């Protein structure tokens, strides 16, 4: 089974690797690129802890092969802060206590990042639907909603 050469722009930087076709994108990110902020929380595409942005769209990296990302752009949680400055979403999660154990947080932030990109002024309902592909066991979502609202307000200025 032939390995494939892939080139992926990750958080703005071109990365190259030779991978088995079956290598899941999440394992490429975590084990090959050593970006461990993207997490694995399940094995049936339910939890969303593995969410990253592929060409700006939120996808579950556990349900894609790394080879599918060849020639495309990936953004992970490590690429969210701008020049060492926390993104308003990251600030919002901290200010509004939108995290406890932190395991779902990168996925939540990536999904919210894409959500705010498409819908800069989401209602509470839209936020809840928007993050319905991301599970959290700690927060009960209420403060996550507030975190996204915080970011939306800050980004609107």
């Amino acid at each position, binding site marked *: 089974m032939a390995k494939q050469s892939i080139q992926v722009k990750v958080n703005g930087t071109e990365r190259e690797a030779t991978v*088995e076709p*079956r*290598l899941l994108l999440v*394992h490429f990110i*975590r*084990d090959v690129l*050593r*970006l*461990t*902020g*993207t*997490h*694995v*929380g*399940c*094995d*049936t595409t*339910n*939890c969303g*802890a593995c969410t990253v942005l592929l060409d700006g769209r939120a996808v579950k990296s556990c349900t894609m092969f790394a080879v599918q990302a060849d020639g495309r752009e990936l953004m*992970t*949680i*490590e690429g*969210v*802060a701008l020049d060492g400055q*926390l993104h308003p979403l*990251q600030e919002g*999660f*901290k*200010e509004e*206590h939108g*995290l*406890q*154990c*932190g*395991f*779902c*947080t*990168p996925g939540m*932030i990536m999904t919210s990042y894409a959500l705010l990109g498409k819908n800069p002024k989401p209602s509470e309902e839209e*936020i*809840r*639907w928007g*993050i*319905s*592909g*991301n*599970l*959290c*066991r*700690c*927060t*009960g*979502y*209420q*403060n*996550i*909603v507030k975190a996204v609202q915080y970011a939306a307000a800050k980004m609107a200025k």
Partner: protein
Amino acid sequence: MIHKTSSEVGGMGHSVKRKEDLRFIQGRGNYVDDVQLPNMVYGQVVRSPYAHARIKGINTEAATKLKGVLAVITGQDLEKAGLSWMPTLFHDKQMVLATGKVLFQAQEVAFVVAEDRYTAADAAELIEVEYEELPVLVDPHHATDPDAPIIREDRDEKSNHIFHWEVGDKQATDKAINDAPVKIKLSTAFQRCHPAPLETCGCVADFNPATGRLTVWETSQAPHAHRTLFALVAGLSENDIRIISPDIGGGFGNKVPIYPGYVCAVVASITLKRPVKWIETRSENLQSTGFARDYHMTAEIGADRDGKVKALRVGTLADHGAFNAAAQPSKFPAGLFSICTGSYDFQASFCEVDGVYTNKAPGGIAYRCSFRVTEAAYLIERAMDALADELGMDAAELRLKNFIPSDRFPYKSPLGFTYDSGDYKAAMNLALEQAGYKDLLKEQADKRKKGELMGIGISSFTEIVGAGPAHTYDIAGLKMFDSCEIRVHPTGKATARLGTKSQGQGHETTFAQIIAQELGIPVAGITVEEGDTDTAPYGLGTYASRSTPVAGAATAVAARKIRDKAKKIAAHLMEVSEEDLEWEPGKFYVKGAADKAKTIQEIAFAAYTDLPPGLEPGLEAVDYYDPPNLTFPFGTYICVVDIDKGTGEVKVRRFIAVDDCGNIINPMIVEGQIHGGLTEGLGIAFMQEIGYDESGNVQGGTFMDYLVPTAVETPHWETGKTCTPSPHHPLGAKGVGESPNVGSPAAFVNAVVDALSHLGVRNIDMPVTPWKIWRLLKEKGQAG
């Protein structure tokens, strides 16, 4: 007395933003699967597809030959090292890797180690196991039938009965119930569910032959206990074992036990002399690790005609799966279940529990249960509603009538607990007010006339946490104290280490806040560390909401020891006697001359530079705290539901949660805990079950079917609080993490039953699914 501190200092009561967040929001947490060591290899467990079967043979040849495979370990291999069985945390043992037979589907049968995860997965598939199926037992009610298959052939007593436990006064209870003019009996099952933290269990075991030391990064809520048990079981020298619990992605009790995967990884690392990483998948997590509940309970209450309760009689059948791996205090086979008299002043009570084995995964104590308090609170709160129904009395009124009055504390319950403090009326009244209870009742009456289904459910729970005093409590022999060691540095900053281990509870912030409260050092200048057994003082870990009651107390006491020494230094610096000094957070000042003062920072510096003669240098203290009692948080929850008659779907319209956990360290963190626990309760009440079919096949063994609520199902939680401090805790704090999971399931179910009670419905077992409601409506001729 609790001084108020400034927000810069951030002591008790301040909603200080969390210090740990910075790394998590940047994806720079360090969870076990993030650990990468040079030369590291990967292990995968091979599991049984059968619930009960003899192992006729295991063929590892093809797996061993696969390129990249380094080792294949079976039960037989472990047997040679005396490790094929290991002790559980509760007077039993469990197989590490199966020998002879398998006892539950997904049981560990072999462990393959390969260069990478993918090869390990391929190798696992190549292991051939020949099984001879045996009859399966999944219904605990049949566990002691004469023809029930005996699951544990290793025990001397060939029976599926594990224990019988009872407490209370049977005679007095029987008489009181017999004589009572009003009696109810409620039988209800609390279904088997699973805590399912978002991060599964796993470890990196690293035996270093160059140093002879074993380091294990582990998803453990109790790293020290694990270290000691590894030493005892594996015959390794405890000083050569280091357990590191790094960042843990949720625990909820799932990460207290020692799992076969950890032991196999350790054995593999010692054998291969390389770091071995084992991370289970979600399916493995749900199907084999510590489950929760599976209690089949009956409550009987005898009461007067005016609703005054007299006696409570409880009988329970506990399904422990194939091994009794419940992690609970050693003298309590049913945990703290005997809190089941709850918030009510029963004259007499008797409670008995029988535990049995079945062909299911082992465990029982988990999922924010406070050692079975979830089951107890569920039972009494459902039974009180049944009594209210029987009497035709309002559910709130019945509770108010029977609450232990606030002037009766400390209160000795008929089942032997001494409740430290409580004011149940106050919490109830606040909840009723916040809910607008009277208006809700009116609305319900109006809706009923129109045939619409609306329910109001109340749960006024009392919890018991903070295990526990050494005279009564231990886990596997280890007393349940906890610890804090604080070191104040010359420049007035501090580092503290504790024997607990946060899995999201915010200890890096809250314990810093306790120290800030006691010493006046700003939270920003205090580093809190947990989880590394090489550096942290011994503790029993974080579960059962014990960190604040026990380690929080240790922290306060250690800080006060430091303050006592600081006073001596301050007296020396100001050339006065200690009796002349007063304290306010951050400084000692001379009585009557407030400008003559020394700050804690100045004192800290002096501790290394200018000491009174005879006083040891440095400014540090450690405290191992043996709590004098448990603590008893409580609350009243009110749930409002609307039911779609056509589909049976329940919508939680409102949920009001009033909690009393005594003095609060960080209100923001407490509120977050409540939100999270209520959401878990929602899942338990309406969606979750680890079921087994008659062949012992797990139903609901992946997130496809073991349902975790999303932000869409989860309602807006309305929280409130009252404050009844614990009289015996140095900070008056009680702990709160589990209260929402303890108190909420009954609120949800009481609401649904209330919505249907006018149709004659008295009980629905969880999970309360739409089809169960539809069936009931159909039965009552009400289906849409």
